């Protein structure tokens, strides 16, 4: 006799699927917003500056586009994460806290290390975008380590 595959979801499994679907939609919205920010800044960039090299005086963007991108950044970095915190459970929230702690520590220790290495002639002077990247990648790496260890 061939055993029929269990096709009816239990109430818990159905709720888990709904939770997963909601998180995928959330992730999709985040990707769209991130892509829009990247697309707008790439398409309307009028200057020769670069965030990486720190030549801020050469950055140039249409004021309306700048305001729009700023609004999208607020949504992407404040509204969405806060909304996301409300959707995740305590386990994922703990991993997120570890990630944010890692990002904070990366900035706290990264800036003075960068400064002394600059003083020692080994690095260019610290600049804002570099510090931001330290925080971002510190957060990302800490989150990944927390997820892998769990």
């Amino acid at each position, binding site marked *: 006799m061939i055993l029929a595959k269990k096709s009816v979801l239990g109430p818990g499994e159905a709720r888990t699927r709904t939770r997963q679907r909601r998180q995928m939609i959330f992730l999709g919205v985040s990707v769209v917003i991130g892509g829009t920010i990247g697309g707008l800044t790439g398409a309307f960039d009028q200057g020769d500056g670069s965030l990486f090299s720190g030549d801020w005086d050469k950055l140039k963007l249409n004021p309306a586009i700048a305001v729009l991108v700023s609004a999208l950044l607020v949504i992407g970095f404040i509204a969405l994460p806060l909304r996301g915190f409300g959707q995740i459970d305590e386990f994922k929230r703990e991993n997120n806290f570890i990630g944010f702690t890692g990002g904070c520590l990366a900035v706290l220790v990264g800036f003075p290390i960068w400064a002394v290495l600059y003083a020692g002639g080994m690095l260019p002077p610290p600049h804002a975008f570099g510090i931001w990247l330290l925080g971002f990648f510190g957060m990302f790496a800490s989150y990944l380590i927390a997820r892998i260890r*769990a």
Partner: protein
Amino acid sequence: MKNRLKVLRAERDWSQAELAGRLDVSRQAVNAIETGKHDPSLPLAFKIARLFDMPIEDIFDDGETA
């Protein structure tokens, strides 16, 4: 902290996703609790105890009880 969550779940023939949905947490959270990598908060521990209709100390063992 050791716990009997995996055994209790198996006794009811529930998947991790089924248990996760009944507890309103992610499947990853259930897995982390079962493997002892995450200790649930007190509210979640109470929720688990209520779901299995058992006292918390019959599910979780902190190794301190005589």
